[in-house]
């Protein structure tokens, strides 16, 4: 994405950009096929009961229970989820992905807003930067699994009038907890990016701090914010999937993976369909950020990020 040269809309570059897009799509499919081939290749030649390398049993077993055929997984997608029901596995997986996607999106949005707000506060008050920053770093060392029950517990006590804190909100908050961190650091760095000359220019125009923030600092920070958003997107997905499992929220892909893993003895291909769903979830979030990227970075010089 960022390695792709950016060209303006007017120049003939849009042709080569379209060609680049096609090439990337082809490479994506090729890579997918290669992974499938490697899987089937190992399954064909690998030891049925697993194997040792220098005495350590690290070679996985290749029987159908541990490594189902790729086509078994694919055909499993179109099977009914349970005998006697119309819903296919694919449908159930996609519905779970859609559910988790919305929760992750809420988490991502909260994380981005909180991260940016923290960056502004740290920029405005140097003292606070020194006070807050170490805690931000420490916060990321707390395992999510340890935090999840706490957040769920706090959320359970929250109630304003008729509003009751829903369980999925706790999951979104935990996604935000991971997502805010890169955004806060990236934005802070970006807000500090304008050159001394640009800041002097705003001073010479008697621009108050707030207007310098919106007219100079934020636009200058965009090339720093975009990569931070990419990190935040994948972190919010991880946060949501893990928290769904540890809080026990039904409906999302995280819970589905656990459910299907429990059925793995009888139905080994099924768990892989849910893993595929998790991958689709990650891709969807990455795609969303790619769209944000192309909107924010239009009309910017190529290689704008410092």
């Amino acid at each position, binding site marked *: 994405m960022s390695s792709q040269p950016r060209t*303006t809309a007017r120049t003939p570059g849009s042709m080569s950009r379209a060609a680049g897009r096609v090439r990337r799509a082809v490479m994506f499919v090729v890579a997918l096929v290669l992974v499938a081939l490697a899987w089937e290749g190992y399954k064909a030649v690998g030891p049925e009961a697993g194997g040792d390398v220098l005495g350590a049993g690290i070679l996985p077993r290749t029987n159908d229970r541990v490594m189902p055929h790729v086509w078994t997984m694919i055909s499993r997608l179109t099977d009914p989820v349970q005998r006697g029901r119309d819903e296919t596995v694919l449908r159930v997986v996609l519905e779970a992905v859609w559910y988790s996607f919305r929760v992750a999106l809420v988490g991502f949005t909260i994380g981005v807003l909180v991260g940016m707000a923290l960056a502004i506060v740290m920029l405005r008050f140097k003292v606070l930067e020194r006070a807050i920053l170490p805690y931000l770093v420490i916060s990321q060392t707390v395992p999510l699994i340890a935090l999840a029950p706490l957040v769920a517990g706090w959320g359970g006590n929250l109630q304003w009038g008729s509003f009751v804190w829903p369980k999925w909100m706790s999951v979104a908050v935990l996604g935000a907890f991971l997502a805010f961190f890169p955004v806060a650091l990236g934005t802070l760095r970006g807000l500090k990016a304008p*050159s001394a*000359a*640009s800041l*002097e*220019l705003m*001073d*010479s*125009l*008697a*621009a108050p701090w707030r*207007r310098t923030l919106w*007219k*100079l600092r934020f*636009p200058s920070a*965009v090339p720093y914010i975009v990569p931070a958003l990419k990190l935040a997107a994948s972190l919010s997905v991880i946060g949501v999937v893990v928290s769904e499992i540890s809080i026990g929220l039904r409906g999302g892909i995280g819970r589905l993976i656990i459910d299907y893993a429990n059925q793995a003895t009888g139905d080994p291909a099924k768990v892989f369909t849910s893993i595929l769903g998790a991958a689709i979830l990650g891709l969807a979030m990455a795609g969303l950020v790619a769209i944000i990227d192309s909107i924010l970075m239009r*009309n*910017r*010089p190529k290689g*704008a990020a410092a």
Partner: protein
Amino acid sequence: MSAVEISQVNKIFSTGKQQAVEALVGIDLSIEPGEFVSLIGPSGCGKSTLLRLVANLLEPTSGSVLVNGKPAKQARLDQDYGMAFQQSGLFEWRTVARNIELPLELKGWDKSKRQARAKEMLELVKLGDFATHMPWQLSGGMQQRVAIARALAAHPPLLLMDEPFGALDEMTREHMQAELLSICAKTGTTVVFVTHSIPEAVYLSNRVVVMSPRPGRITDIIDVGLGSHRDEDTREDTSFFKCITAVREALRGIEVTDIVRGIEDR
């Protein structure tokens, strides 16, 4: 009323435990409306500092700076001057026209008025066809012209320039000097111009203020008697060379190593 009135200004930089630096000592300078004044001198003579005192980007340690008869701070708040730097400092996310509109936005002008003025300024700097271009699509000289257009967008009576052509090649530089003179002739703007280059100072100025370092002070003020009309022939003129010699000799009074460094720095 003078355009700029600097009297008895001292500026001392004291940065914590380090020894305080006397950047400027006993500066007196009066600049008339419509005048073009260059500040020249070796690195560290305080010419950029002096410009920043006029712009109120720095406060003097003592003494007073009046711009348009007002204290410098009030003049800055009223946008009584425009400023251009060595780096054009254009915002890469804004089109050329929107860059020029920046000072007007901060003044609270409405959109149609801003656009009309930006168009007028683009014509003035001969970039009428480039309004919708992005700054990074322009050459260095064109970017600097946009920066000048931005500095003059609000029609300020005073233009402060800190080595604006320092990063340009010699050909572009001479061309830009001629452009600047014709713009100033049209607008009647007063200019304070910081430079390292003796020919540049002489070609552009009514007066050249020669400064020396440690402590920064004005050692000489040379009147350039080249008249108001200047073109490419002026550069071949004997009186042009005479003035260059005069400035060079004034600078020669200053420690030699500083001059050599100062001139090569540009």
